[in-house]
């Protein structure tokens, strides 16, 4: 697989996602500065997700406002009660209904990112107890993007990565450290380990 120059990383997870995303952020080297957009299934109640993640990375972590620019080095988390979509370099939020019970939905983020970024996108499906993200990952792959899936055997809940693998059998599979290494290798330019 020879993806083009990556510009965006999109990550989807559900049950067990906080620990998995934390691990992923810690496993990426400091020089890794691609904007990283995370959909973690969450209830509509305000939560400390941003603060929790910020404690594990030196990169700025934020819930984007509607139409915020997608900035290098930033980690973005979909806010509760909204779907997060990305256009070329800008976020769009919607309050449309949940997609298969989830709002934010991984599929919605992945599909919009695949449309906007095509081969410049890497999408990662981590642990979770449902199949959100599978359709989106198929779209990412069809658009020439890089599909990565956490090895279900290493995930706290296997359903989500298993569904993603069934949808995209050619996806790169590995534990979180291996996925981080794949992302780093896929970025052109110098990589500081």
């Amino acid at each position: 697989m020879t993806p083009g120059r990556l510009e965006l990383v999109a990550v989807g997870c559900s049950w067990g996602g906080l620990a998995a995303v934390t691990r992923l952020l810690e496993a990426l080297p400091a020089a890794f500065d691609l904007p990283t957009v995370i959909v973690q299934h969450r209830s509509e109640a305000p939560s400390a997700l941003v603060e929790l993640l910020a404690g594990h990375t030196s990169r700025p972590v934020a819930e984007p406002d509607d139409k915020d620019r997608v900035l290098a080095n930033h980690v973005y988390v979909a806010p509760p009660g909204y779907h997060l979509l990305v256009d070329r370099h800008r976020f769009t939020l919607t309050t449309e209904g949940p997609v298969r019970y989830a709002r934010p939905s991984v599929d919605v983020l992945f599909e919009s990112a695949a449309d906007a970024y095509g081969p410049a996108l890497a999408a990662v499906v981590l642990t979770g107890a449902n199949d959100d993200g599978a359709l989106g990952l198929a779209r990412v792959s069809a658009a020439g993007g890089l599909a990565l899936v956490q090895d279900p055997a290493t995930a706290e809940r296997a359903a989500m990565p298993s569904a993603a693998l069934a949808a995209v059998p050619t996806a790169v599979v590995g534990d979180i450290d291996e996925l981080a290494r794949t992302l780093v290798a896929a970025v052109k330019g110098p990589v500081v380990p």
Partner: protein
Amino acid sequence: MTAGPEPGREGVAVAREAVDLEEVEVDALLDAVYRYYGFDFRQYARPSLRRRLWRRAALEGTSTISGLQERLLHDRACMESLLLDLSINVTAMFRDPSFYAAFRRTVVPLLRTYPFIRIWNAGCSTGEETHSLAIVLAEEGLLGRTRIYATDINESVLLRAKEGVFPLEQMKAYTENYQAAGGTRAFSEYYTAGYGGARFDRSLTEGVVFSRHNLVSDRSFNEFHAIICRNVMIYFDAKLQDRVHDLFHESLVRFGLLSLGQKESITFTSHSADYVALDQADRIFRKVR
């Protein structure tokens, strides 16, 4: 690269390799809908618009956006459905309870200083927000001297808003929202079960004018002490958002109040310097010039 299409070996090549066919189809559909029906969605935010178009295409059984365009132009019922897709904003009574608490705390004392209050609830959709505002104003003793103008682009959602009947199965969640928003009464006092749902007390909307207004193309129609427009402009692109901010700025009295959704910003709009934030977290702004 030449300007026109280049003939290819195996037939007709496309004008530019990088051209996105789907974008061409979406542009053509939006132009056609505007020219034929007069509805202008050309400046809606593309990612969410594209999603809604594909959903409609799937329901209509067409496999391309061009196929959907044909259906839209030759079948008015299909256009009606798309109009509903694009104008129903899924919302809830007392969505974001902290906003209603902030409204009580911050907006109500300022509204109290006016002998007669005019509020514009722009993009009221099916009326959940309008009813929630009316409940807060009633409890604060202000509803009797308030006129709420609840507007939407779509007639059929306005009819539903006017009816004030919401699904019974939502009442548990709405009651929790109401309490989290600082409501102190029994929420069930406000509705009667029946009529296929929970019918809200008619007195809540006696002072509400429900009317059609299109934020994309219509002018200002009054001067307001407060404008509530939450999670409506997120469906618009940045340029159209600027246009609507012009409209709101023009429609607010001096020191009037503007409420946006919790993830909507005025920082990058052309009016960012015209407001101060009264509550940054709940996006309540006051016009200062």
